[in-house]
């Protein structure tokens, strides 16, 4: 810590820069909630006065609630799948001691290096080949793929933070691989499992680029928003919907972040 004091001088300007950067990061996004309460069809200054009308239009909209239900179901299923894959892939990568496990882990992180449009079209070809076609099942497959790098990274860093001696002790005391995994390693990484699940749910819930190719007749929420953007009249409704989505995303992402840190902190404090 004492070495840090030397470079601390001159941090004031940098602090201001960081503040400006955060404003740039958040200002455009915060305009959506601002204009969602504005009593005008145009998103423009000056503000015309406060209204909740746009939020009222969200109620009793069957297309919207259908898309929401779709997004929730697809989000939960694909997050479960991605979390399961993230847990097993990273566990075997760290403890499996096989080239196959290491290869699978490397390929699982490959989608970071493939643009979403190519992930989308490759899955579109695949689901047509196996007869699924564009459908909710196809979207789930796509979202497992998109969320996989995140769950692998989250779970891998969590497993790596558990002291090796804990697993060795369990095995020495006669626990089988399965028991060690289920009764020792999994409970110790429970916060990370929850965090990985929430983050992959968010990824699926907000995903647009891949779902665009894989959706059949039942759109997800981002696809519903996309379809509404063509009509200037529905922009305020989109902004009200966007505000709700942003709020929920912030809460889920915040909770996931707290869980991830709490888990890591607990493991470092009580290594035994």
């Amino acid at each position: 810590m004492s070495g840090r004091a030397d470079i601390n001088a001159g941090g004031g300007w940098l602090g201001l820069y960081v503040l400006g950067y955060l404003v740039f990061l958040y200002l455009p996004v915060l305009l959506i909630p601002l204009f969602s309460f504005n009593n005008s069809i145009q998103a423009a200054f000056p503000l015309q006065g406060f209204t909740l009308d746009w939020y009222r239009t969200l109620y009793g909209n069957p297309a919207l609630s259908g898309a929401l239900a779709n997004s929730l179901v697809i989000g939960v299923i694909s997050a479960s799948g991605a979390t399961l894959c993230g847990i097993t892939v990273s566990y075997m990568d760290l403890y499996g001691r096989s080239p196959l496990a290491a290869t699978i882990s490397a390929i699982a992180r490959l989608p970071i290096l493939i643009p979403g449009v190519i992930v989308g079209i490759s899955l579109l070809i695949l689901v047509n080949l196996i007869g699924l076609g564009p459908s909710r099942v196809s979207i789930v497959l796509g979202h497992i793929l998109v969320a996989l790098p995140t769950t692998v990274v989250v779970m891998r860093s969590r497993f790596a933070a558990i002291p090796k001696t804990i697993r060795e002790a369990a095995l020495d005391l006669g626990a089988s691989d399965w028991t060690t995994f289920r009764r020792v390693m999994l409970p110790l990484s429970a916060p990370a499992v929850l965090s990985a699940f929430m983050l992959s749910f968010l990824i699926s819930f907000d995903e647009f680029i891949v779902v665009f190719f894989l959706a059949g007749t039942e759109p997800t929420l981002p696809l519903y928003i996309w379809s509404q953007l063509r009509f200037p009249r529905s922009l305020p409704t989109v902004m009200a919907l966007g505000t709700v989505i942003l709020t929920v995303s912030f809460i889920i992402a915040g909770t996931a972040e707290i869980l991830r840190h709490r888990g890591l902190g607990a493991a470092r404090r009580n290594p035994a």
Partner: protein
Amino acid sequence: MGSFAKRAMNMSTVVAARPLPENRISPVFRFAMLLPGGLVTFFLILFALGLVVFLAFRGNDGSLLGVGLTVENFVTVATDPLYWTVTLRSLVIAGLVTLATVVTAYPVAYYLAFHAGRRRNLLLFLVTLPFWTSYLLRVFAWKIVLAYNGVLNSAFIETGLWKEPTLAFLNTPAAVVVTLAHAYAPFAILPIYVALDTIPKSLLEAASDLGARPFTSFRRVVLPNSMPGVLAAALVVFVPTVGDYVTPAMVGGPASTMIGTLIQSQFGKANDWPFGAALSVCVMLVILCVVLVARGADRRFGSRT
């Protein structure tokens, strides 16, 4: 004698069959644990990408997997100047976005690594939070900022800077660059921060003990040591932006068509899947080249790893 050797052999096989705890993994457990990840990676990633490559060499007859075996798609891509223009434009836009995000993110990462102190976790959370919000909504936000009767124009008129709203914001490549740079800004900070944070503090102390001034020690010690993080950041921004089709459609207008737009339309309106697959293969080859260049550069700086 013979039986003794046999017993010794038996003993050694018994010993060899009781290895260290780490190696004692039952085949059933191994299979069950490798199955989900194996299915997803080999089937959904490798097999699906293999299909794209296969389809790229087929002719379009309206059927799912095309017909024949041909390089015609690639000949079209290589000879039609349209595809050169669009590819070049995508590279320039993605390059500018990468440059802008990395250069603006570096000071933030530097502050987080060396100056943030107790606020570090909060700041890290704040810069990564937008990453978890809807990409579509972040792009949409820029549409309402840049529109003809949008936020920026109306704000300027309201403050008396301009009298007439200008069309110059929306539907330009510049709008695409700004929007993408904003959308992918959070991607760049984390890799650079991790690289800066893992620089051994003793290196900095040694530099200042040996009389290096702050700027020299930054240029000669901190910057080279953080280059692996900078390259990783450049990669995670470049890859999704070079294939983006949402932002050009939303704020770009016809003058900002990118390669992702062309791929998307081949699988939609244009309905020529083999040709779209060939375009995708070209994009993957371009990305492969960029990755290899980044790898090479990483090796030059990678004295630490």
